[in-house]
């Protein structure tokens, strides 16, 4: 009897190359995220973490390679994918002249989500009372981030892509965010977090993926679980024109 086929991955990237003009944002990424997983993407600045998330959201098309999000091509089936995916990026996408409440209501309705959860989401993120009637132009960076999180919490999409979510948040907001991620994972949501503060997120994630130079260079289970650290082989897509030797030594725990 053949074992049942594994569920199709929530995110699948195969040899993905993405360009911005002449600059390669991603230089051949291989990544699979199973549904319900919480994955941390770590790596230095400029490694391609943000680009990875943007590719998954369908904002950046691939120059070569393959990407599937929730089983669909995020460029060809834009509308469908985007309604089921939530991206928390560096910008908060707020309109300065509208109040916090109006911004959240607009963003949730634009995404076609049920407006019923808006009140709870705003309460959870502390955006009630006078704050909800404040124009977005008067908010601090941390408050703007909380508004964006409230939109995410109200929408509760199947796949969360969080880009440096802790940046700019104070301690209480950070713990709210952590609890949010835990609740999301518990409800079956797939969460992918890109952060170079690995210690903050490491406890929440089931897997940690390292990205450097536009490629995935290492994967390991999150801290607390035993297992091996695999360091992945060097680039094979281009002929080595005097480049360093291919392949590395794999460390085995």
């Amino acid at each position, binding site marked *: 009897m053949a074992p049942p086929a594994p569920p199709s991955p929530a995110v699948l990237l195969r040899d993905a*190359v993405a*360009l*911005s*003009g*002449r*600059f*390669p944002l991603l*230089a*051949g990424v291989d990544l699979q995220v199973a549904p319900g997983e919480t994955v941390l993407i770590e790596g*230095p600045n400029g*490694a391609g973490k943000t680009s990875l998330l943007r590719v998954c959201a369908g904002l950046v098309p691939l120059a070569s390679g393959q990407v599937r999000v929730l089983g669909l091509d995020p460029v060809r089936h834009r509308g469908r994918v985007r309604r089921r995916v939530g991206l928390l990026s560096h910008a908060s996408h707020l309109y300065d002249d509208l109040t916090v409440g109006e911004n959240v209501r607009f963003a949730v309705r634009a995404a076609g989500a049920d407006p019923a959860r808006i009140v709870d989401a705003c309460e959870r993120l502390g955006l009630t009372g006078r704050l909800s009637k404040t124009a977005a132009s008067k908010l601090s960076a941390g408050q703007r981030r909380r508004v964006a999180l409230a939109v995410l919490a109200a929408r509760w999409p199947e796949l969360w892509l969080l880009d440096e979510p802790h940046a700019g948040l104070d301690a209480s907001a950070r713990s709210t965010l952590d609890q949010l991620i835990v609740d999301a994972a518990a409800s079956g949501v797939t969460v992918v977090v890109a952060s170079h503060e690995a210690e903050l997120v490491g406890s929440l994630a089931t897997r940690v993926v390292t990205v*450097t*130079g*536009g*490629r995935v*260079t290492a994967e390991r289970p999150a801290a607390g679980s035993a297992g091996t650290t695999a*360091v992945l082989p*060097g*680039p094979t897509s*281009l002929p080595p*024109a005097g*480049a*360093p030797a291919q392949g*590395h*030594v794999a460390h085995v725990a």
Partner: protein
Amino acid sequence: MSPNQGVHPAPVQSPRARLTVRVVGIAAAVGVALTVWLGLWVTPPDQVQGNLVRLVYLHPGVAWVALYLAFGLAAVASLLYLWPRTRSLFWDRLAAAAVEVGVVFNVCTLISGSIWGKPTWGVYWAWDARLTSTAVLLVLFLGYLALRRVPAEPEVRAKRSAFVALFASVDVPIVHFSVLWWKTLHQGATVLNPDLSPTIHGSMAWTLLLSFVALSLVFVWMLLVRYRIGVLEDWLGSGELDVALRERQAEGMIDDEDEAA
């Protein structure tokens, strides 16, 4: 180290392509020479316009190229680029080349029309319906070229330019009719400006036809040369990409080597 060493070599024009360009160029030169000879010496002057009528061997020809050949080609090529099944940067480069060469012919149309108009109308510009539409088309062409000059990756630039060409193509017939009505339909009796087209007969007709063919050949030759330049420009740009890819991947390997050490 030159950015292009060790990367894919320069696109070479096939011998057949080189021969084609050369043949077209020679045919164009011969056609133009023949037209000039026939137009200036062999054909008779007009009864009404005298020797001025010889402009008919230049003005309608360049107008035809600018308004129909160049613009039509740019519009069709842009549509073909936008259509997913036929999308290829070839159409984008072709459209851009057509527009650039079209600008040259457009300016020639306006200048020759203006020169013809001065003795006929008394003024250099009398808002003749056809010339006015040509002027609007020139501005649309220039807008297209201005947009192309904005730095962007080839696919983005191609898509943007193709949309502008699409919007302009849809607009040109509407502009043409608006300007025509504007000139011909108004209250009160107004004497229309006499048309620039004289009556054609005999040897004039053949020379006129020859001028159309010769000028079209000039357009095609310039188009092919400009297209080739576009191909070389794009190759120069893409050579840098492979280097960038390698450098980007080297970033990761240097980090790993530091850890391994």
